[in-house]
């Protein structure tokens, strides 16, 4: 069950990151409920050191998959997930406190990351 949840949140997060990368980098248009996505996407917080945040999302979720597949690297998943979880707290704080705009896709990704953090805490395989 926990293993299934791990895959569910990882793949959902990856799908959201892939869509956001397409929407942000290629299409320049994001389908969004509430209209907050445009504000978030056009703010300087949409990039980290010049790299679009959705690309960082792809790197994050892909590394989780690769680390999970590799038996030797699996033990480092808690390290990766906790970096992602704390960074998601920061991004959500930026949306709520600085930009006053909520991007629904970013929230889905943040929830996936926090769920993965919780799974990491309880899953004994890591």
């Amino acid at each position: 069950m926990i293993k299934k949840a791990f895959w569910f949140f990882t793949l959902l997060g990856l799908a959201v990151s892939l869509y956001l990368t397409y929407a942000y980098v290629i299409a320049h248009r994001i389908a969004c409920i509430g209209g907050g996505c445009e504000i978030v996407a056009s703010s300087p917080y949409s990039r980290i050191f010049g790299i679009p945040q959705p690309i960082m999302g792809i790197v994050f979720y892909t590394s989780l998959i690769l680390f999970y597949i590799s038996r030797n690297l699996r033990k480092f998943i808690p390290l990766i997930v906790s970096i992602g979880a704390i960074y998601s707290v920061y991004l959500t704080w930026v949306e709520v406190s600085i930009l006053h705009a909520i991007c629904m896709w970013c929230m889905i990704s943040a929830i996936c990351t926090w769920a993965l953090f919780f799974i990491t805490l309880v899953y004994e395989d890591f």
Partner: protein
Amino acid sequence: MKKRQKKNLILAGIVIGLIVIFLAYKSINSTSSSGFKVDPSLVVQNEPDPTIGKPDALIVIEEYSDFTCPHCARFSLETLPKLYRDYIKTGKVKFIFKPFLRTPQSLAPSNAALCAYEQDPVKFWEYHEKLFEGFYKAGPPYYNKRNFIAIAHQLGLDVEKFKQCLESQKYKKDLLEIQKEALERGVRATPTLFIAGYPIEGAPPYQDLKQLIDKALENMKNPQGTQ
């Protein structure tokens, strides 16, 4: 042993995450303005709307811009300096900035910008850039009286006169006139540019804008080429 290792990895992850957040936040907030300085001789005096360009410029670009619109901020901070360098300074384009009230929150910064314009049409351009820069970094809460006055003070404007202008919402009527004019011209979103009268919705990348301007300039030189 395994549990302890996991705990250490989580703690290490949180520490690394915090360092990344600190560096990311610092890099965003240390970004300085584009340093967009307007040559005073290119600022057209006694115009109702802020205008830059040579009197005999070949084409006019009007921008309906909203201070609460992130795309307008990006246009003013990133595209306008390039437009200035390549077309305005070279006498090809005259640029008119029209503050458009898209939301009720647009009134305060638009009025503040026109209060700055009233005092110094040259410093207006720096004032508008600083407004957009603050909004771009800090979002809508940046638009408060304290920040409006702080920028005015920083640019050496008459702060007392500025405060009076701000408090009386001196330019509300003019701004509503601009809004009416914009709606009559079909403006539905911001920014909307009118390049030689031809409307362009949104903030196009500079390369696309360049092509549109070059086409408009070509049409000016060769009117037969136009439809």
